[in-house]
């Protein structure tokens, strides 16, 4: 009812739900022993429903809350989540999810954005590592071959992000497409 603000009440209420979906994704993924995080579906869905700004806010709050409740380190990766929210929001606006090929392309773009933002954070906080076993093994290997820390960290991050983000993008759209139109409409930002 706040007409002069794009962040309608429905959208504000959507944000906690988006963070909850991220949590649930992570929870289900580990319950099903899937070798991925799948913890950004909520952020992506909020971006698709309500646009890049809302996606960014959901992403930021996701990491703030995660930092406040489980893992203080995730605060700094809020930037990555913001990047994911913004990029998915813009890709959705650009109709980059209309077919499987475009969706795949979008997934790759999102993975790239996430990696580019995460690498400097990895370098500053962890000396380049990500904390993921497979990625870090690759990192150690590249470091031993005298590859630069930035490049090593980039590959460390992207091996993990690539599959995870592409799948998250596909799942997000799979869900979005079956949501009733009347429901989707409620969460649209006023433009």
């Amino acid at each position, binding site marked *: 009812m706040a007409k002069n*603000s794009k962040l309608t009440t429905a959208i504000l209420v959507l944000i906690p739900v988006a963070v909850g979906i991220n949590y649930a994704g992570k929870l289900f993924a580990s319950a099903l022993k899937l070798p991925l995080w799948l913890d950004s579906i909520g952020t992506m869905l909020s971006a698709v429903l309500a646009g890049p700004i809302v996606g960014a806010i959901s992403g930021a*709050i996701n990491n703030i809350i995660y930092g406040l409740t489980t893992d203080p380190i995730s605060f700094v990766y809020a930037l990555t989540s913001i990047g994911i929210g913004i990029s998915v929001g813009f890709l959705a606006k650009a109709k980059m999810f209309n077919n499987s090929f475009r969706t795949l392309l979008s997934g790759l773009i999102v993975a790239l954005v996430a990696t580019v933002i995460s690498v400097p954070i990895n370098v500053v906080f962890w*000396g380049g590592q990500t904390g993921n076993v497979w990625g870090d093994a690759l990192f*150690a290997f590249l470091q031993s071959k005298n590859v630069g820390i930035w490049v090593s960290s980039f590959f460390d991050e992207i091996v993990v992000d690539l599959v995870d983000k592409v799948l998250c993008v596909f799942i997000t759209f799979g*869900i979005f497409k079956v949501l009733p139109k009347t429901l989707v409409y*409620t969460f649209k930002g006023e433009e």
Partner: protein
Amino acid sequence: MRVLSLYVENDTFIHKLEPIAKLLYALISIVITFLFPSITVGAVFVAFSLLLAISAKVFKRMLLLLNVVLIVLLSMVIIQGLFYRQNVTPAFKLWGLTFYKEGLLYSLLLIVRVVNMIISFGVLILTTRPSDLVDNLVQKGLSPRFGYVLASVLQIIPQMLSTTSTITDAQRSRGLETEGNLFQRFSAFFALLGPLVLNSLVEARERAMAIEIRGFGVEGKRTFVRQILETKTDRWIKISLYVAFIVAVVWRIILWAM
């Protein structure tokens, strides 16, 4: 678990501090440890943050928080000790692998920073009622609409997750494959998350309607049923933190200039 929070109820001096003062300590101590690439500076803050944690009687819980990053910290010592680019001085050998001094010191610097970050934020999180922090921020000028999001997220998530077990059971009874091969487990993931998303969006819409009808969209002066008070101690703590921050930044700039 009704509220997503690590808050440990107690009545210590630290608990009674204004939430914003604790938040400020966490932020400023983190910034300072990152401004100075010095293990000593980091260690001083770690020690001080630990002192706060002990006087707030949350030391054990703090260890649990640190436990989360233990393995990554250890792997940092190994990877940097072995492969840090500026490694030249061998420190010791273990199972035929040479660890270097430069890498070990670098990993130690990273570790004190991360550990301070966890402990200083841990003090805030473990000793502050989450809704008090939000109320405090809103009373100091944070948009109440944004404050609502922060406060509700802590309760809505456990609420959503409590329904996940219901959904899991319902899907299992319909013969959902939660064990099978990777593809089957991926379809299971879809079947679990889909209904959860739909349900929570419907509930979100209802919640939005319900709070609108209770004046959430009304613009104008708001009042607070819980007023978070700022004591003299709080004010002095905040002033000293600002001073420490300014001194650190100036000092850093002078170091750069020289």
